[in-house]
């Protein structure tokens, strides 16, 4: 079993790497979808099938569709300007904290992965974490505004006009 898990982990990290480094935005979006799928599998293993399903449908489905939609509007672009941060410094900065974190973490922790009954989860969501629900409602309203902005190129035109004045 452990071998399979290790393979999943390697695949996850590889696809995440590909998603961020691959040339071409469309490829990046597809690799991101793959990352999302693999994350969902890990979640399932960790005993959260419900969350895994949502992650699969939203992360791999909805977000990918949005990406493809956005790319189809504005197309790809190769950016010529220099890096703002030297790549070596960036690499160091992105690895050091997580190496320290790993050093602090991996010292005898072995959690138990078990399934949570659906009714307990529902109870937690609807009763104990109401503030999360309010937050989600607010976020979803924001998201609707975002979608409107996504499909409304008129904002840009108006901005240009005002600037022209």
């Amino acid at each position, binding site marked *: 079993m452990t071998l399979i898990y290790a393979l999943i982990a390697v695949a996850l990290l590889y696809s995440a790497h590909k998603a961020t480094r691959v040339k071409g935005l469309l490829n990046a979006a597809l690799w991101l979808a793959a990352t999302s799928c693999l*994350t969902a599998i890990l*979640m399932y293993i960790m*005993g959260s099938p419900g969350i895994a399903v949502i992650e699969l449908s*939203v992360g791999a489905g909805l977000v990918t569709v949005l990406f493809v939609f*956005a790319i189809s509007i*504005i197309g790809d672009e190769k950016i010529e300007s220099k890096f703002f941060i030297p790549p070596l410094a960036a690499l160091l900065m992105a690895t050091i904290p997580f190496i320290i974190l790993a050093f602090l973490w991996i010292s005898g922790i072995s959690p138990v992965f078990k399934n949570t009954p659906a009714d307990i989860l529902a109870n937690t969501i609807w009763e104990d*974490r109401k503030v999360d629900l309010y937050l989600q409602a607010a976020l979803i309203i924001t998201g609707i505004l975002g979608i409107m902005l996504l499909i409304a190129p008129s904002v840009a035109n108006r901005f240009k006009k005002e600037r022209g004045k």
Partner: protein
Amino acid sequence: MSYIIVVCILGLLGIGFYCLLITRNLLKLVVALQVLVKGAMLAVLFAGCLVDNMEVAQSMALTIIVADTIVAVIGLAMAIQVRQITNTSNIRSISTLRK
């Protein structure tokens, strides 16, 4: 088993942050944020397993998924608008938008 998950979490966070540090493309920025947040979400679930309080961790993960999706939507919308105004997706262009 738990080592594998810790490695996944740290790996995802590291890859996401590295991309945030060097990317100059607004759309790539959204991709990097997505990767980063997946790592964070796994970390929250892992923490839930650690303290045996999976329900709370799961409900928080749910909120994270929602928030993350909205961030992606807003980020993409912004990228499109910025591109149409400035004709480039370079993140430098955002700071030139100020009137």
